[in-house]
Each structure stands twice: as C-alpha cells, then as structure tokens.
C-alpha cells in the first residue's frame, strides 16, 4: 500500500515537473495558436543560459533572475524573427518551423557551451522526506510548488486586460489587428512568458539530471500533459500534469515487472492517443466552435 501511495505522490510531483515544461507550450498555443514543439529545446536553452551565468561566477539566484530576463528577451526575439513571418501559414508549416528551431537550438547550446552534461546546483538536499515507508523527492517537491505558483500566476494573468487581449489574439489574428491589438506584441509577450517559464523548468530539471541536450526530450511528456489537460487550458496543465505523472508512475510501477521493460513512455503515448481519440480537446480544453 505504501508503495502505491509513494508512486502516486512521486508521480504527482513528477507530473507537476512536466507541467513546468507544458505551461510554456500551452501559453504559446493559447495566445498564438502555435504548437511550439521547440519548447523542450527552449527549456534546454534556458538551462544552458542559467548554467553559463552561474559558471561566470554569479550567485545561482542572480543567475536565475538574469536568466529569466534573458529568456524573456529570447522569447520576444523568436517571435519577432521567426513566427511573425509565419502568420497565416498552415499549421504544418508552423509545426515544422518549431522543429527547425529545435534543431537549431540543439546545435547552438551544446555547440557553443560543450556537449558534456553540466550541473546546476540549487542546494536542494538529496535526502528524501520520509513519511513512514514513503520517500518523497525533495527536488520534485520544490518543482511541484513552483509549478503550482506558475499555474496560479498564469490563471490570474489571463483575467487581466492584457490577458484578455492575448486570448483575443489566439482567437483571430486579423480581427485583432482590425481592432487595434498589436498581434505581434501580444504573441511576442506570450513567447516571452513561455521563455520565462522555461527557466523554471530548465533550472529544476537541470539540477536533477544535468544540463545537456536530453532536456529537450522533456517535450514529449509535456505535450501529453497539454493534450490531456486541454491544449489551451491553464487549469488543464495542472490536471493533465497530475494525471500524466500519476498514471506514468503507478502503471509502470506494477506493469514493468510483468512486461520486463520500461512502459512509462508507452503509457504517455497511450494517454496522448486515447485523449485524442476520445476527447480531442482534452479534459478542460475548449471545443472548437464551428458551424457549417
């Protein structure tokens, strides 16, 4: 029983760690309608940036703050230089563009800073929190709390006037222009915010596994989180993250021994697949309003 509970708790925390990555993905999708398959690579880039700043001798806190500013700029720049030119193109082109960006970032980060894994030390102790027979991962706990905070902040943000404008932009670019909303700026801001959230994800994941290109593979579970929760729903990031994390922990926890292989990613794929087949817009996503 305690095994089950431990799987659930650690799974939930892992899921929230995934939510950290997913929230950037959802933010960009929500305001720009762009599925940013480079978000994993952006997280990687953020981790490299923070690592670099820390390696230059800055205190880790300063490095994170400065990194957040830089990544906001990076997000703005990405929109400005790339996505702005893609407005009105079919979704497949935009998906491919983000994949191209992914390739580019995966070249730049490791290419300039070295491919061997780097470490980020946040000073989070390795010893677990022990409750009875249950071990809880301290780093994930921190990650979970940060994720919750980010989700909360995002929820509040979308109720503000700026947030409403961003949502309007996600609905219809041309009419947004027509009523004087600077679509470019709105989309740029959302990329900027996604870049900031990538710092949180990159630093926390980087402290757990080291900073190298594999950080970009976090995209896969993050996409599962986004799809399950509803690709444009901030609440969905929370619920999706918890579910993907828990299912991805509990099911392999019992199944792996039987199958004799790591089934977690199979669970993740099945989550994506089943969600799309049964309820494409996810648990909380909006059903597209379409009329013939």
């Amino acid at each position: 029983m305690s095994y089950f509970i431990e799987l659930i708790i650690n799974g939930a925390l892992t899921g929230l760690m995934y939510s950290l990555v997913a929230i950037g993905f959802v933010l960009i999708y929500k305001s720009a309608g762009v599925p940013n398959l480079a978000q994993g690579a952006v997280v990687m880039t953020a981790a490299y940036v923070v690592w670099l700043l820390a390696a230059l001798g800055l205190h880790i806190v300063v490095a994170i703050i400065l990194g957040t500013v830089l990544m906001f700029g990076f997000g703005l720049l990405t929109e400005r230089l790339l996505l702005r030119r893609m407005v009105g193109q079919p979704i497949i082109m935009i998906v491919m563009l983000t994949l191209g960006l992914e390739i580019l970032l995966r070249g730049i980060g490791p290419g300039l800073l070295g491919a061997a894994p780097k470490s980020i030390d946040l000073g989070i102790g390795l010893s677990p929190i022990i409750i009875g027979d249950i071990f809880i991962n301290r780093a994930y706990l921190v990650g979970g709390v940060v994720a919750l905070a980010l989700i909360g902040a995002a929820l509040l943000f979308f109720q503000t006037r700026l947030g409403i404008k961003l949502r309007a932009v996600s609905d219809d670019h041309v009419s947004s222009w027509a009523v004087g909303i600077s679509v470019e700026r709105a989309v740029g801001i959302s990329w900027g915010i996604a870049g900031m959230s990538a710092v949180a994800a990159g630093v926390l994941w980087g402290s757990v596994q080291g900073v190298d290109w594999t950080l970009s593979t976090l995209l896969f579970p993050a996409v599962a989180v986004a799809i399950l929760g509803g690709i444009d729903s901030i609440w969905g990031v929370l619920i999706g993250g918890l579910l993907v994390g828990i299912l991805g922990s509990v099911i392999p926890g019992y199944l792996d021994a039987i199958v004799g292989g790591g089934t977690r990613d199979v669970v993740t794929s099945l989550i994506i697949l089943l969600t799309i087949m049964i309820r494409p817009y996810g648990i909380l996503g909006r059903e597209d309003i379409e009329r013939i």
Partner: protein
Amino acid sequence: MKWIIQHLFAVTLVGAASFGVASAQEQPIKFGLLQDFTAVYTFVSGEYNQGQRDYLTLINQEGGVEGHKFEAIVRDTGNQPQRGIEAYNRAKEEGAILFDFLSTPVSRALVDSVLKDKVVMITPVHGRGDASDGEVFHYVFPTMATYWSQATVLAKYIEDHGGLEGKRIALVHIDSPFGREPLPVLQDLAAEKKFELKAFGYPSPGNEQSAVWSEVRRFRPDSVLIWGAGGGQPVSVREAIRNGIPAENIFSVVWLAETDAKNVGADIMKGVKRFEAVSTGTDTPILQRIKAKVIEPGLGAGDATHVGTSYYNIGVATMAVAVEAARNALKSEGAPLTGEKLKAGFEQIKDFSAEGLMPAITITAKDHQGGGAGRVSQWNGQAWEPVSDWGSAYQELVQKEITKGSQAFKEGK
C-alpha cells in the same frame, strides 16, 4: 591567389574530401573516427575523440611509426545510420583502413560493409559482445572489455567483497538493447552463484526514474548495477542514494565519469563504484608525454582540462591499441598498410598495456576482445580510485554468449 581559388573551388564542389591530401608527399595512415558528436553520444564523444586525436598527434610528433604518420578523418554522423554509411564510404574512398563509429546503430548498420570491404572496425568498450568472436567477425575488434565482460568484472568484485550467494542484486538499466545487454550473462551467473537478480528498466533517455527506484528500494538490493549512459546516469545515482542505497553498493557500467560526479555532487557520490577499462588521470607515461608534447605546444584537439578524464583516456587507449596494431602490421606485412594487413597487426597484439594505461591485452584471431579485463574504481570525492586489480572474470560465461551470438550472426547470412 591561385591556391585560394583552387581550394575554394574544391570546397564548393563538396569535394571537401580531397582537401589537404594533395600536399602530403607520403600517404599517412588514415583512421576514420566517424562518431556521433551531436545526438545520443555527446556525453562521451567529445572527450573520447579528443583523446584519440591527441594520441595520434603525439605519435606524429614523435616521428610516427617507422616514419609513417597518422591522420584522423573526423566526421559527425549524428547517430544516424544514413549519415554513417555516407561518411564510411567517403572515408573509405579517402583511404581509411580503420573505423571507429562509437555508435551502436551506425556500427550495426556497417558491420556487413566492413566485413565485405576488409577494413577494420574497432568497437572499444561499447560494441556488440559477440563481435569478440574473431572467426566470425573477422574485421571487428572490440579490443577492450565488452559489456558482458564489464558485468562479470563487476560481479566478481561483489563476490570478492562479501560474496554473491543469497544476495539480491538489482540491475537498473536504460530500456534499450544496450541496457538489456548484460542481462543474459548476469542471469547465467545468478543461476550459477545462486543470487537473486532483478532487472528494472527505465525509459530512455532516463531523465526521470523515480517510479523505478521506488520499486528498486522495495526489492532491498544488496548491490545495484546501473546500466545507462549520459544524463540518465547521474539521475540513477541520485535516485539510488535518495532511496537509501549506500553509495558503496552502487556499481556502474563504464559510462560514469567525472562530469556525472560533478552533476550528482562530488561529495554525495563518494563511494560509488564503476567498471573501468582504462585508468584515469595523467599519471601514466603516455598521458605525461601528451601533456608535454601535444598540449603544451598547443596542438591539442580541444579543451586542455579534459586531458586525463575517463573518456579522454579511453580515447587515448583505443588509439594506442590501433597504433600498436599498425606498428605490428608494418613490421610483419610492410607498407603500404591495408585493412587486411592491419587486421593481422591487431591479431599480433600481445600483452599490450599502453605503458600501464590499461590492462595488458592479447588479441588473437579467435579472441578480438583481448581478454575482457578491467577493474573496479571508486569515486573518492575528487577522482576515481582503483579498488581492484586489472583482471577478467567468468570469461567462460561470456564466451558462451559470444558463441551463441556469433553463431546466430553466421546463420543470418
């Protein structure tokens, strides 16, 4: 001016290959180091390749082997068989007679070509275990302990320090052919030595393993073998320690290096053990000479701080073996070298230890692994410290697997 135009022309023709060759009066001996610098193997390939090139530079600085210089053809394959094949064909056309792909998929895709083209492929510490059978894989040379031998060396260490019988041993591995590779040998061993073995696979690339380790903890293992590479390794070590497994009881495959220790935290990882095929540090004569003759004059192929790291030294050792083979070949078969002659040179290697850098290996026409020796070393907080002597273990079990695998390969023909 004309020179520049000619060269620019060559470049634009993508005949980049023919570059610089024209100027060399005598054909150097060419090794194709066509590795994955940008995808899965980035954690090792940088330092590894640097070591390889620095060693070749050293040999060239020292006048080559009987006057013959060495040249490394280095290309990125991105771990893609596709690009590996092209790079291989091109390097072959340029005259390379030895290849090191350091990538399981690329090596696999090219095994047949290598056998057919009669050029040497080395697969040090990473290649398929059954390629040790020189009578089937004529041109493939693992030259160092394969994963099977690594597993047995680690098991032997556990046996020597507390025994195996009745113990519980967990194999926590990345869920890929590489991760599963030690399983058959360990299973055989478990049956023979009567210990309980349980395998736990985590999905690649292994940056998240918490569920697996909850399970491992409940298995209450006496020792844990972690079988992964790159980013998954520090995660494994952390999770193991977090789940209350003493660092001393953690044993790793060859892929656990200084960077990983730094990543986990140099102090936290104190006590963790790993297999090593090549000694670490710069105390050995070859490394000293590299420092003096290559690094100090500024001829190094990369960051000087990498000199002496685990992966760097493995790279040096691979080339030491290869150059030794070339030396043998030149001596017995004469110049110019071909793949066939080089193969013969490899098979004459006897008790070669690269001046103490690695265990003495003896390669024969039958055994291309060279004995499968290695040792266990332990992280002491700053460096890897050997805790056992060079040696191999249970080679009869390994041999059984080798024969099984190579027979299957033969029948596949």
